[in-house]
């Protein structure tokens, strides 16, 4: 929870109006992200810890209830895919 995630070098996260979604761009590839993945990655700035990211999301989306499990599961998957790394 104290760990700080950041995008790996070569990965770029941005909003694509035409696709109406966030995408993750990397060498010769692109993943279209669903709303929750987009919301989580938008918080990954290489400065804030997982704990702060969860708190920030819970504040932004109070109707969603506790988010720790979802956020941690997504970040674990993102690590497995080598999209992000721990600082």
């Amino acid at each position, binding site marked *: 929870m104290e760990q700080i995630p950041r995008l790996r*070098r*070569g990965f*770029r996260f*941005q909003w*694509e*109006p*035409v*696709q109406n979604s966030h*995408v993750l*761009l*990397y*060498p*010769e*590839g*692109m993943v279209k992200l669903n709303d929750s993945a987009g919301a989580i990655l938008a918080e990954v700035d290489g400065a804030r810890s997982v704990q702060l990211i969860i708190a920030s999301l819970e504040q932004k989306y109070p109707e969603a209830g506790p988010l720790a499990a979802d956020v941690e599961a997504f970040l674990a998957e993102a690590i497995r895919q*080598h999209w992000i790394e721990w600082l």
Partner: protein
Amino acid sequence: MNELADKVGPPLWLLAELTYRCPLQCPYCSNPIDYASQKSELNTEQWLDVLRQGRAMGAAQLGFSGGEPLVRQDLPELIAGARELGYYTNLITSGLGLTADKVDTFAQAGLDHIQVSFQASDPELNNAVAGSRKAFDQKLAMARAVKAAGYPMVLNFVIHRHNIHQMNDILALCENLDADYVELATCQYYGWAFKNREGLMPSKSQLVKAEQEVNQYRADLMDRDQPMKVIFVTPDYYEERPKGCMNGWGSLFLTVAPDGTALPCHSARLLPIDFPNVQRQPLNDIWYHSPGFNHYRGDSWMPEPCRSCDEKGKDFGGCRCQAYLLTGNADNADPVCSKSPHHDRILAARTAADHATAGLEDLTYRNAHNSRLLYRG
């Protein structure tokens, strides 16, 4: 046509083939056989305009390729323009003509990634295939410079019967150079590679062995928690069903050739279809409304056996270029398909690969002399 245009998604990938000029002579080059007679190139302002139009339509991935894109002196300007528009910018290069200074200049301009192509894992074979004595050392130096500058790096190897035994050495070299991705792309037989197919196509047993080696190496990487990703594109000539070429004609990919001709893939120029040019028509019109791009959209153009086949939504009848090259009619099912009445041509190529004896010296290398010799337009 309007009904069709409603269902067409945006061109998310744009490939800018900046030039056909190239210092190397790879005998499997995907450029047209008659490239030497096509000298005209869009200027800087025209390219920037294409990039702006593409981005407005939703293109997010941009490849600068060629030929060798480094021969364009305006490359830093094009990179900067593309990056500012929000593209993820990929430079696809042989490494020849690259310097450590240029690697840095491109980084400052906002280049996201560099792909360097190699021909083999050792200098002798590499340089023989590339038709250049200094190619290998230069490529090594540039791969190191690319990593030193902090880019993610893809190393690309075109695989054929003369280097397919090198899988372990190739992957070890890539790991040693700290590549992030390795593309082992078995030759696809268009352009120069089609001319040289007999001399390039691996035999089935060569292929099986190579696949085992690659899978073993992948497992090793996983055990060592090494993030290097290995992509092995196996040749469709050994399949019974064709690839869903380009994810469907005019569905995601848009290529612009050096002279501004817009194409649904980089080989499509060989088809007897009149493709539009960005110098005469807005890109949006080209993509959604031109006869060239609408030619093979949907499935109403399909003859049998595809027409009544329940797999047509999956593979779109395969590759139009392959159908054209092997059957003389681009409407036909891709002969890779075992349901195609022309599948015997694929079987014949497999048999030929089992008995091929041609050496590297028997291949037709991609150069201006051979281009003029083969094509008298």
